[in-house]
């Protein structure tokens, strides 16, 4: 992982070569591990390896003219295996992607819409900002909203857009609220003041959309006193850790799973209901490969009585992306038009192979993607997708 993200602020493809990161890029041995690891490598005219070669020869224009980087789903697969430890996904590919999108004759419609929505409404779905706390209707536990009670708080829970608006995401938001209450976590949310952290803005380096969302949220954060930020969206976690940092953001940030792991001793005795599930866990790219949380989710699952874990062939650092990152969430139609198999459809086959009846996830993008993939695979009903927090709650509630 890149050591000093702050130092890359303002870097462009022209100046990148002269930074420490550029020196790493120059050390590429053209081994092709990146291309071979990439879940979309087969469909890219310019996978990372060729991009680096073109960059060396000053031929990047050809790369921008191809849609290769539009197919990058920010999954960190290439970066995690690169024998020279080049921070491909973190730096180079983002810069290339920005140029690629800027030069596309037409941005695929779905994506265009998501970007516009994020800009206008603060969420990619285009929902009204005032409905952001609608998930709390029917919730029987208290959730403090900072704009109503701005007392200092330990945990500022950044709910994010999918858990706020998507029906299945809302289920997980409610589960988290209940678990936090049971654990007596001192927490609060931003409520309707919150806007998407800007993950889809991370399609670009720092210009435009990303910057405006970063500015907005950073300003809100300064209004309140809190010790740490917790989010259930690994993409938001990434945005805070790797993009907001570049803009001077310094608060401590955690994902809800590693956060709950810190409460493990308290949590474990509360897991009383035996769940007779055979579970396979899908490592989210941002939580696993990028931030190294492989064992915490598994340990928590193992602590739930009755649960049996079976692993997919590709797991932990070698997990395969669900296809939702890097804008992929809004490119399914585009990929389909190019006869590219949806990554979630591919991944679900591995999950089904395990014979498990629950696919456990820890990222709100995965829920809708895998539920849909199960339908496509004709497995609807035979396997269900559940967020780890939902499973925790199931084992806790009487």
């Amino acid at each position, binding site marked *: 992982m890149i050591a000093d993200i702050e130092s890359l602020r303002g870097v462009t493809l022209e100046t990148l070569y002269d930074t420490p990161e550029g020196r790493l890029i120059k050390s590429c041995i053209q081994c092709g591990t990146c291309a071979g690891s990439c879940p979309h490598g087969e469909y890219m005219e310019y996978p990372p390896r*060729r991009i680096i070669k073109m960059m060396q020869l000053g031929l990047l224009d050809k790369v921008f003219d191809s849609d290769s980087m539009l197919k990058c789903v920010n999954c960190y697969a290439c970066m995690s295996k690169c024998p020279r430890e080049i921070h491909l996904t973190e730096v180079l590919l983002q810069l290339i992607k920005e140029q690629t999108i800027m030069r596309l004759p037409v941005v695929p419609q779905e994506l265009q819409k998501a970007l516009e929505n994020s800009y206008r409404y603060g969420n990619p779905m285009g929902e009204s900002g005032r409905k952001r706390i609608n998930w709390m209707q029917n919730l029987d536990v208290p959730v403090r909203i900072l704009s109503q009670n701005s007392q200092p708080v330990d945990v500022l829970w950044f709910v994010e857009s999918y858990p706020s608006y998507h029906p299945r995401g809302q289920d997980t938001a409610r589960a988290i609220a209940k678990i936090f209450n049971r654990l007596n976590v001192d927490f609060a949310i931003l409520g309707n003041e919150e806007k998407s952290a800007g993950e889809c803005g991370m399609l670009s380096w720092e210009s435009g959309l990303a910057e405006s969302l970063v500015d907005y949220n950073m300003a809100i954060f300064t209004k309140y006193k809190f010790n740490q930020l917790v989010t259930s969206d690994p993409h938001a976690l990434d945005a805070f850790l790797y993009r907001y940092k570049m803009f001077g953001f310094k608060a401590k940030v955690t994902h809800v799973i590693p956060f709950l792991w810190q409460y493990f001793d308290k949590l474990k005795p509360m897991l009383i209901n035996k769940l007779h599930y055979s579970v396979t866990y899908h490592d989210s790219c941002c939580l696993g490969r990028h931030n190294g949380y492989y064992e915490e989710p598994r340990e928590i699952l193992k602590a739930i009585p009755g649960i049996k874990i079976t692993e997919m062939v590709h797991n932990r650092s070698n997990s395969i992306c669900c296809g939702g990152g890097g804008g992929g969430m809004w490119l399914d139609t585009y990929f389909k038009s190019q006869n590219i198999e949806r990554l979630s459809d591919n991944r679900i086959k591995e999950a089904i192979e395990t014979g498990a009846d629950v696919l456990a996830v820890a990222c709100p993008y995965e829920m809708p993607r895998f539920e849909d993939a199960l339908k496509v695979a004709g497995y609807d009903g035979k396997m269900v997708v559940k967020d780890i927090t939902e499973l925790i709650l199931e084992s806790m509630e009487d």
Partner: protein
Amino acid sequence: MEKKNGQIRIGFYICHCGSNIASMVDVAKVSEYAASLPNVVVSKDYKYMCSDPGQEMIINDIKENNLTRVVVAACSPFLHENTFRNATFQGGLNQFYFQMVNTREHNAWVHLEAMATTEKALDLVRAAIYRVAEHKPLERKKVPIHPDVLVLGGGIAGIHSALTLANAGKKVYLVEREPTIGGHMAMFDKTFPTLDCAACILTPKMSAVKNHPNIVLWTYAEIVGLDGFVGSYKAKIKHKPRYIIEELCVGCNDCIEACVYKEARFLDEFNQGLSKRKPVYMPFPQATPQIVLIDPETCIHFKSAKCSQTCVTSCERNAVDLQQQPRFEEIEVGTVIVATGFKPVDARKVPYYGYGNFPGVYTALEVERLINASGPTQGEVVLRDGSHPKTIGIVHCVGSRDKHTNQWCSRVCCLYSVKLAHLLKEHTGADIYNFYIDMRTPGKMMEEFYNRIAEEGMKFIRGRVADIYPDRDDPQRKRLIVKAEDTLIQEIIKIPVDMVVLSTGLEPREDAQEVRRMLNITCSTEGFYIERHPKLAPVNTFTDGIFLAGCCQGPKDIPDTVAQAGAAAAEVLALIDKGYIEIEPNTAYINEEECSGCKSCVPLCPYTAISYIEEKKKAFINEALCKGCGTCVAACPSGSIIQNLFEDEEIFSEIEGILNFRNIQREMSYA
């Protein structure tokens, strides 16, 4: 400093070192400046001071100008201090009337600003010129050298060194940790580039070691301590219990037959766990020495003390001794050759290659055993599931050239992969794919070998393997997909194979750091032992009398290993046959008149060179043991320990020199 009325006449020389020094230091200016310093009568700069003309210049100047001291500003004293001391001596002076200034490693190579670098040179030179005036004449002491040699490790490197020395009439102790000598080479079937059978060329050397009158072979033994210095080392050796009396065992294997385990049940180390052995076993048929051993981890007697001990009763020679304890022995030797070899990278360190997870994935060393006629399957390549492979993928660079594991190229893997491709094809007729990043075949006959195997029709794919996983099109999920970008055709390819061979790289042994500390030699951060000079002293270490051979110094093939082993033996012979060694005179001694007998120094000496003489009530330093570290000198409360070459006047003058910069016109001001 005062002029000493012409008694002290210093010659000063600064070396350009080609452009190494001259490009960063204004050498003419330094020599001009030195000429202005007290007692300096000659001051010159020259392109290569270490060359013959450079040395001649010093010798002639001493004679013509009646010089009494010499200072040379050049490279590290490590490289050329001896050269210039020798020139000083040739000129007719005591060789310790010389002082060296390191203007290369300590100056020109580490700074970026030429002006400041020059000024630093002036300061360093002034310090040396002040210091050298105080130098005293010293003599190097000669001490006899013990002619016996200790060789650590009985791989091909240790074997070759030991035989060379023994043939030259020297007594050699060959200490091998495992129950047999042979090392990795003993596991191979054939060897590149000639494809000659490893056993055919190695076994005769192994028996020669066993039978040589000048070699004491200790297997299943380890070094646990080394004291002393070149010419006179004391090594402590631990004999691990084999539970067999070595002198009595003739290797008839009756006890193995008689063991209460009727079937072999435990993983066989030599066969990489591809076959089974009993708790009492012979490591492999050609094991040298032919002595069995009992593994206490698996033997019932050691686990529960409830065994009928059929092995004991079966042995007609009463060689089985279940009570055996470790035995320690101390030997005296003059020199040591370290030949402890390497360890293959654990293939699990690259988790996405599936080793230990998918049964069809093998390491190269396992395959060496599989294709070996005396291996677990007598050379028949059968997979773990009993089938025969029809397609095989060989993956290069596993754990090499990768910052996640080891960054170095392991040098032999491309070639042994090509070798295995040939052997596997010969044994199975399978279709063979080699996945490589760069094909590296340096060395005599190596490219020719690659060419020959390529002509046999191997498929070569230029791309590092990115993933290996079971093929979903195979109902049994046994077939594996090897995925990589073929960077030459720029396509992602997925090759279904029955067997994957991981060409794991070479890395230092796990205990390399411990052994290094025990022997007081140096190793790089990764753990390969460092030679004294990468080009000019490739088998010496920084510790006199300790030499390196084989893969413990870095990955290499058998030809290079043997060449190095021979070179190490030659260096040892050069030392022994000279008969004595000269020791540096920079040792410490006690000024008995001043010594109060407080004993503070005695426990401080890291080399246990200081003793306390009861009768005189004074401390005493054994010159032969003293390494001149200076610890006691600094610690003595009465200031009664003096160290040659580091006497108070010498050090104080040097400090005075370095601080006395006021007389230079600073040309630069530092912001």
